[in-house]
């Protein structure tokens, strides 16, 4: 009885799936899927390597400091960084006094209340503060940005496929749409005349739907002056800020990797000993 019912259930499910298969094939032939702009013109991330790549990689402190400079002087005008506190910057190699100065000198002040009147007010940052956001709330952020919301950057390299390489590619990915061709030499606007970037958006083939609300943030060299004398080319700034955003998303990466090696070393010895005791104990038993 069980097997009879099972047979009928199996016949039903498999049969419906095969019917569905026929249906899928027929409709695919009748109405073949139209090619999409994204499929033909969305670009893979650019090849870029960082000091922190790989199981042995460590952050380049100088690069992180340069990245912070790019973030604070360029990105922070629109993008918040709510999960990172000023005190965390000590990990970038700054002294306690430097951290205090960074917090105090941050362009946006920390929301507060006037101790005399209780009215909303602002005060300079201290190391314990999280980095203050450029806009008071989402409505204010959208109002100032053509109704687009600049995402918080704390976790951006973990929240996007491709991580830091994606951020790097996106920052350098602004192109002139007129006459833009992909690697196969197909011209976007000839293949998809309707895909012209709407006003208020910007063409960037590294962005998911090719049109991004953010204007090119590093359109020219030397937007910042690096303290260590590094030449602030566009690629240099993009790379530095991508490394910095990797650190903000994963500040404990170096602890994680070094703890990982210690754990692996311990386990290797444990496993060898366990294997030897296994062989010893079983030596007299054929199995």
């Amino acid at each position, binding site marked *: 009885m069980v097997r009879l019912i099972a047979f009928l259930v199996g016949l039903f499910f498999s049969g419906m799936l095969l019917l569905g298969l026929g249906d899928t094939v027929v409709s695919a032939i009748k109405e073949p899927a139209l090619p999409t702009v994204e499929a033909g013109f969305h670009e893979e991330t650019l090849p870029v390597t960082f000091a922190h790549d790989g199981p042995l990689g460590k952050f380049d402190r100088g690069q992180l400091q340069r990245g912070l400079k790019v973030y604070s002087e360029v990105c922070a005008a629109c993008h918040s960084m709510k999960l990172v506190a000023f005190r965390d910057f000590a990990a970038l190699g700054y002294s306690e006094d430097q951290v205090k100065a960074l917090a105090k000198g941050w362009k946006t002040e920390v929301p507060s209340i006037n101790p005399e009147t209780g009215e909303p007010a602002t005060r300079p940052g201290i190391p314990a503060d999280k980095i203050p956001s450029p806009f008071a709330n989402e409505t204010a952020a959208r109002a100032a940005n053509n109704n687009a919301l600049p995402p918080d950057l704390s976790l951006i390299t973990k929240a996007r496929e491709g991580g830091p390489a994606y951020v790097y590619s996106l920052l350098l990915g602004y192109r002139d749409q007129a006459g833009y061709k992909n690697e196969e030499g197909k011209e976007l606007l000839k293949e998809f005349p309707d895909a012209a970037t709407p006003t208020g958006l910007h063409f960037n083939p590294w962005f998911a739907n090719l049109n991004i609300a953010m204007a090119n943030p590093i359109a020219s060299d030397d937007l910042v002056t690096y303290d260590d004398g590094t030449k602030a080319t566009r690629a240099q700034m993009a790379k530095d800020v991508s490394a910095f955003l990797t650190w903000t998303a994963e500040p404990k990466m170096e602890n994680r990797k070094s703890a990982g090696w210690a754990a692996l070393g311990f386990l290797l010895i444990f496993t060898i000993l366990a*294997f030897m005791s296994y062989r010893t104990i079983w030596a007299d038993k054929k199995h």
Partner: protein
Amino acid sequence: MSFPWAQEYKPQGTVSKWVDERLPLPRLVYNAVGAGYPVPRNLNYFWNFGVLAGVALVIQIVTGIVLAMHYYASVDGAFNSVEHIMRDVNAGWFLRYAHMNGASFFFIVVYIHIFRGLFYGSYKAPREMIWLLGVTIFLLMMATAFMGYVLPWGQMSFWGAQVITGFFSAIPLVGEPLRQLLLGGFAPDQAALNRFFSLHYLMPFVIAGVIILHVWALHIPGSSNPTGVSVKGEQDTVPFHPYYTAKDGFGLGIFLILFVAVTFFAPNMLGHPDNYIPANPLSTPAHIVPEWYFLPFYAILKAFTVDFGIPFTGIIIIPAKLMGVLAMFGSILLLFFLPWLDTSPVRSGHYRPLFRKFFWYGLIPSLVVLTYCGGKPPYTQWVVLSQIAAAYYFAHFLIILPIVSRIERPLALPNSITEAVTGKPLPAAA
């Protein structure tokens, strides 16, 4: 106890004797995983995975309890509390990554454990109850893992919860009210998050309870073995301790090396980037996909694309969505009937030439294809592949297996485990 030649627990010293007379817990442990449990001597490495699954559960419970001390189940605070754990709690990043990847590794070892059972016929008499309890554990694990994935309240958490609870709304008439009752609202929100957290904390202990029953049921007939031939005498077995504690110790080392390698060096490899974006009920991710261990079932769900009805009348009896949901649950529930679908008296796949072909060239590839297609967007090629694979999956268990068990001519079985191991026939039984 299973075998008369099992070593007996002999308490040494007055304290041990005192305890043994009042609460024989050490005796219980001795008989369960000590020298008092005789185990077939020919178990291969696939028999390590039961113990490994137990270890994985312990890892999840220990890391989970500490995480719960720092986690805050609130739609406004959950995401940030997880990031607080990652950034400010001592070794919090380790606890969180270990818990996150621990879930994946739990499923990896449990899947291998299940496939061991499927290939070596561990579900057959007299071990049906062990199998039924095992499938129950698997269902509980899936529920626990799903609710755990909701807790960080990222984009995939929220939209995963939306999709999975949406299955209930496919049930005719009562579906939508039932969904609202389960969620405590019209969509996943504070009420749902709170109850998921509560249940996510409860379920592992329920799992631990069913594992005790699973192991208890195992100790009635004793462990199966790769030949599938029953234990005939003392020469066929070795005491669990030290023989299998040593072998499991080595297996555990290998398991932990792989677990540590992923947890410390590629902790987000098995996750989805969208879950690092806080949940936003107003913005749907481009592709909602579950965690990798649910992908084959997700593929089955999506593979049903036509309604079942009376042709040319437009009357629909079972809509495609409901059928997908039924099939998805059915794909797991059918495992409960496996002991009665596969009627071959031969347990081990080694001695079943036809069964083995369907297992390696049918079942395994179909599950690989389903896992792969489950993570893909619904383009024609992936839908077609998952429809073929899902059709095979159901046919394998419900149609092919019962027929194969009837028509197959199994190979000659060895007379005993010892004969299979040593290659020498036993002296005539005394």
